[in-house]
């Protein structure tokens, strides 16, 4: 058994280790034997065997294998025995250096270097074998003694009593006091804590670390060559079969294949080494054969040709001044109109190399392959030809050209109206003052003062009577101007305040018609007032039906809306129960019983007699500000706060026939002249634009719209310009009220 152990250990040794002389090694061997029975032996024999039986078994098996081989070796080398024994010596030399170190000397016998260990003095304490083991119970399970007061027997056969053991607290205190308590383990044999030796601790550490528990095991040991290398070849064949023919006869098929290639090479079918292709490309007449029908790609545009400024010696005016040069340097290279600074050299020899040459070539190439190319038709026309040819304004006279009168209000003059006979003008301002003045001379005849702003003013279009309506906060006042012919005055009075009131149709109507008693009638007070319901706000628009019996008003308040008032029956009604959107403006059709209602974005046309919606016009304006219908009734113009003016041909389409955008600010007011082919638009930019608008009776000819004149004269105050324009029905004259408080009359 010892020999076998030595053999296993030998495998783990380095080959360089040397043989020891025989006699000496034997002595060491003796020592070893005694060693194993010592204190070390206790662990190696007792515990190691217990704990690692499989390792031992394994080594046993290996030993049995190697035995035979070692015999061979012994035959070959006589010293091998000694060799191994000496090596077994060194196996006790573990990494912990329990034993003294060995010396390497040259052996006298073999002449090989060998290791010699110092002699071990057999002193008293060198060997623990003489010490008595306190308990000689042997290797039995100690739990057999669990019920006994003793734990075994000593050498004399007396009982070894179980030593007294403290309780858990004592144990804990012990562990606290004793620093080596954590490295000690309970020995059942002696029933006491026994400190673990360094070897045991090392073993535990190795197990814990997952290493090989054997400290002397070298995992990187060089390979021992048993069957390879010189002198170790197998001499005997593994099988007795005779060597096949193919091992020594060259292959026929291979030869056939090679010969095929050889023949091909001889015939020139295969070129063994292709002649190196010439670097120079061979050119030939590539355009000799006809090309495919595929159309060629468009040629790239050529770069522009150089101009005078690129000359090396340009005329002096091409050179940049300092300011221009600075500006050139400050602009980005992409934005420069030329990519060089003109230079002038007195002679060709002084011209330096152009440092951006390569960069420019490169940029051109980038353009060629990276820039998207778009084919554009370049218009080679005179820009003036784009302007439409229209008849000259001078041929379209008369139209107002100059300001003949100016009437001043103290504040913003919101509205203006001209009497149907064209003699009188009323204008109202923000302070509630309504002035009546003569159109031809501008002399103020009368002034009325109302509470609150004047929202709207309108003359009754009837010619047999004469009065006008003023829209004040939630009220409409009917006023008869002074200096009327007595017949007219009489008729007007009877119309507004008849002696016998028509029967009230609907008493629940929120609108009240009131006439003061005939004793209090003066020129200063209105003869008739219509009280709109509270919360309806300022009436922003008053519009009359052409017969002068019906009147429609639009109020601005949140509850406000559209009412149609009938004068003869003194009755007001709301034509719409529900209107989508807030109504901006309303208009009566001049011929038909139609009613235009402009909400914020749409113009709807209702038939009043049939009470249904006829048409919805979409001007495409964000917010409609003004609206007027042509006297013929077939054309409508719509102005918006977004500066657009739309002309609708009502016969034609729901979409505008023409959209004009010429004012720089919001359009405020539009008005068609009742008799002349004119219309005017006013805007917040303080400008009035007069247009000639001729409408043809045949349906095929488009209406002719010619801008005639821009009238300037109103000043812009608080961002507001000309608020309302009204034509005089008899003449091509125009009255306009502005935010600057002036009311102007423009004449031809």
């Amino acid at each position, binding site marked *: 058994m010892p020999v076998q152990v030595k053999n296993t250990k030998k495998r783990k040794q380095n080959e360089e280790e040397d043989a020891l002389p025989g006699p000496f090694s034997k002595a060491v061997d003796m020592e070893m034997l005694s060693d194993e029975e010592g204190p070390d032996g206790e662990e190696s024999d007792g515990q190691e065997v217990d704990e690692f039986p499989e390792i031992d078994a394994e080594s046993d098996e290996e030993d049995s294998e190697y035995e035979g081989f070692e015999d061979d070796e012994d035959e070959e080398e006589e010293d091998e025995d000694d060799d191994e024994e000496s090596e077994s010596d060194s196996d006790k030399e573990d990494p912990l250096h329990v034993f003294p170190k060995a010396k390497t000397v040259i052996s006298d016998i073999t002449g090989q270097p060998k290791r010699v260990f110092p002699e071990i003095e057999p002193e008293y304490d060198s060997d623990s074998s003489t010490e008595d083991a306190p308990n000689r119970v042997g290797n039995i399970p100690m739990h057999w003694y669990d019920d006994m007061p003793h734990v075994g027997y000593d050498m004399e056969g007396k009982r070894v009593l179980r030593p007294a053991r403290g309780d858990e607290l004592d144990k804990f205190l012990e562990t606290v006091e004793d620093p080596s308590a954590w490295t000690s383990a309970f020995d059942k044999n002696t029933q006491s804590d026994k400190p673990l030796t360094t070897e045991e601790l090392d073993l535990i550490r190795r197990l814990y670390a997952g290493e090989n528990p054997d400290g002397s095991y070298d995992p990187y040991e060089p390979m021992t060559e048993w069957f390879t290398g010189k002198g170790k070849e197998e001499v005997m064949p593994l099988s007795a079969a005779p060597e096949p023919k193919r091992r020594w006869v060259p292959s026929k098929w291979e030869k056939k294949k090679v010969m095929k290639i050889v023949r091909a090479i001889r015939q020139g079918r295969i070129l063994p080494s292709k002649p190196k292709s010439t670097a120079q490309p061979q050119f030939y007449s590539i*355009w000799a054969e006809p090309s495919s029908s595929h159309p060629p790609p468009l040629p*790239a545009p050529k770069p522009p040709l150089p101009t005078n400024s690129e000359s090396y010696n340009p005329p002096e005016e091409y050179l940049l001044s300092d300011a221009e040069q600075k500006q050139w340097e400050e602009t980005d290279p992409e934005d420069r109109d030329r990519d060089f600074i003109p230079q002038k050299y007195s002679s060709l020899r002084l011209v330096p190399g152009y440092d951006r040459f390569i960069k420019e070539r490169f940029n051109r190439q980038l353009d060629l392959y990276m820039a998207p190319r778009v084919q554009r038709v370049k218009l080679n026309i005179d820009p003036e030809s784009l302007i439409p040819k229209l008849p000259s304004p001078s041929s379209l006279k008369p139209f107002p050209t100059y300001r003949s009168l100016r009437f001043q209000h103290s504040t913003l003059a919101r509205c203006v109206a001209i009497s149907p006979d064209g003699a009188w003008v009323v204008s109202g301002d923000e302070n509630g003052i309504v002035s009546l003045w003569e159109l031809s001379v501008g002399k103020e005849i009368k002034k009325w003062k109302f509470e609150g702003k004047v929202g709207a003013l309108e003359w009754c279009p009837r010619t047999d009577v004469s009065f006008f309506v003023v829209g004040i906060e939630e009220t409409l006042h009917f006023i008869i101007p002074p200096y009327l012919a007595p017949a007219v005055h009489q008729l007007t009075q009877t119309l507004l305040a008849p002696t016998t009131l028509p029967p009230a149709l609907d008493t629940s109507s929120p609108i009240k018609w009131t006439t003061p008693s005939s004793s209090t009638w003066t020129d200063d007070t209105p003869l008739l007032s219509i009280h709109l319901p509270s919360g309806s706000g300022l009436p922003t628009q008053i519009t009359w039906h052409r017969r002068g019996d019906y009147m429609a008003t639009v109020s601005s308040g949140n509850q406000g809306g559209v009412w149609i008032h009938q004068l003869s029956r003194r009755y007001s009604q709301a034509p719409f129960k529900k209107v989508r959107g807030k109504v901006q403006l309303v208009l009566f059709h001049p011929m038909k019983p139609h009613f235009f209602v402009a909400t914020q974005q749409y113009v709807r046309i209702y038939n009043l007699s049939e009470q249904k919606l006829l048409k919805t016009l979409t001007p495409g304006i964000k917010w409609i500000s003004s609206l007027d219908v042509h006297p013929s009734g077939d054309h409508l113009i719509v102005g918006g706060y977004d500066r657009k003016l739309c002309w609708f041909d009502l016969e034609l389409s729901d979409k505008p026939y023409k959209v004009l955008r010429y004012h720089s600010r919001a359009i405020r007011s539009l008005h068609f002249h009742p008799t002349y082919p004119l219309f005017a638009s006013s805007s917040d930019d303080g400008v009035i634009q007069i247009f000639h608008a001729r409408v043809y009776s045949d349906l095929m000819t488009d209406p002719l719209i010619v801008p005639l004149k821009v009238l300037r004269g109103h000043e812009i105050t608080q961002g507001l310009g000309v608020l309302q324009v009204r034509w005089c029905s008899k003449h091509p004259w125009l009255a306009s009220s502005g935010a600057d408080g002036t009311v102007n009359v423009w004449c031809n």
Partner: protein
Amino acid sequence: MGRLRQKGKAGAAKAYITRSQATKKLQCSLADFRRLCILKGIFPREPNNKKKANKGSSAPTSFYYAKDIAYLAHEPVLKKLREHKAFAKKLSRALGRGEWSSAKSLEENKPVYKLDHVIKERYPTFIDALRDIDDALCMIFLFASLPSNPRLPPSLIENCSRLAAEWQLYIMHSRSLRKAFLSIKGVYYQAEVMDQTITWLVPYQFTQNIPSDVDVRVMLTFLELYQTLLGFVFFKLYTDAGLVYPPPLDLKKDEGAAGVGAFTLQDASSSTAAAPTKSKKVVEVEGRQISGKDVYQTIKSLASTTPDANGAPDDTTMDSEPTSREAEEEFILQPSKSDPQPAAPLTTLKSLETLPQTVNTSLFAPYTFFLSRETSRPMFEFLVRSFGGRIGWSATSGKGSPFDESDESITHVIIDRPIVESSNETLEERERRSRRKCVQPQWVVDCINAGKILLEDHYAQGKTLPPHLSPFGEYEGAYDPTALALGEKDDMSVDGDSASEDEDEDAVMDEPESAEAAVLKVVAAAATDSDADLRAAELAAEAAGVDPALFEKEVKKSRKKVKSDTNEDAEKDMNKMMMSNKQKKLYEKMKYSQNKRNQERANLEAKREQIQKQARKKTKIARD
């Protein structure tokens, strides 16, 4: 009900493909894709609606036609590029393993693509190709002048310079140069070949450095295409002109920096018709014909069965293919001392007859030039020989000069240095100097552009040159610097006599009046609009030295004129209201560019006025 239309299945979404989609589809790298695009001439397109083309995204992307990319998928060059990728991998593996022999064999079988089919596709007809060689020529001339480096192998540079020389030879042979322009960027040449106007730019002879922000790979890819294109174009041009392509190169001359002179033009018919063994051999060495005896010896040696055994020792450096021409026998120069004006070396009767005579292409035929050594020889050799002149140069400018400085036939010396008084001039030299006319280089170019011989006096050595103007013209209505100075210009031509002093003076005296009036008019016209403008105009008038009373009068006049104009203008402005939005925008655009041009022109005119005024002041002071 028709079939439901699915989004992204038709229209712009299908017709366009983004660049990354294209590379993915072609399964090639971006660099390869770029190379393919350059070679095939595929460029990005701008879809009408980007969102429709890009799945609703408006991110900046470059789009290609999906069909263009589909065609690319079948491109043989793409196949070769893929093969090259595999080859590069194999080679690097072989090198990494140290398998030198397999690396060598791999290198020998390297995949190389040819661009012949690309040329044919892109340019189905020869005219198409000829029309598009402007950029190619610019690149070739640029690369011919670049120094070689690891990225630019010397062979490439050499090939470029060969192509450049071949082009110049053809232009000189066919006398098709029309215009030249000395700019600060280089020299622009314009030639007319087969009714196609070809303009190219040649840099001045300085070493160019490739800037770091230039991608050389892109330039080299273009160059690859251009070399092939020019090769085919030149082949066609040469063969159509009855010449052999490529023209043989005289290595010895080339080493001596003979430039264009190192190549010899060969007649194709004679070289093919005559058998090399029986033909007489004409050998040119260093620009001279070797003597008859040598020729005889050579014939003798050629008659023997071994063609490479050479009789004349000089022949060793010649091309292995003997240059043989029988028909050109009559063109060979007989260097005789008695004849003072030998014919130009390249001008043959045949070539002269074939020339279209609309342009005076033999402008310099009666003259013989000599280049002073500070002038650029390649440039002036090309210019002068293109117009039939004879030209010689000193040995420092390279070999191959047909005559030296002492030649009696020299009529003009192109010189570009200031006059230096040299006291130690021999009598002979002075006499020679008096016989010849020394002109500055600009004279040659101006003569070419004018189409006639200009008076040399204005261009004499040391004189301040008249401005050099672009012969290509400017856009219509641009500022014309010659407009006022026309009177002076006429004097320069040969037919007019030399301008007399007083005539010149008259012109000077006349001009200030007219100039001042012009300033006045311009300034007064500017003053009509507002007070601020008036003030500015007043200042300008004062700066121009206009009498204030005169100014006032002028302003009044112009204001009156403006008033009558305003009515028309207002009418026009009102009519503009009736324009549709589209028309209005177009009108504004056109007006903008028109105004810009007018402004530019006015600026130049004002500058000239100022310059002339200063010049007058100076002359006045000098006179006083």
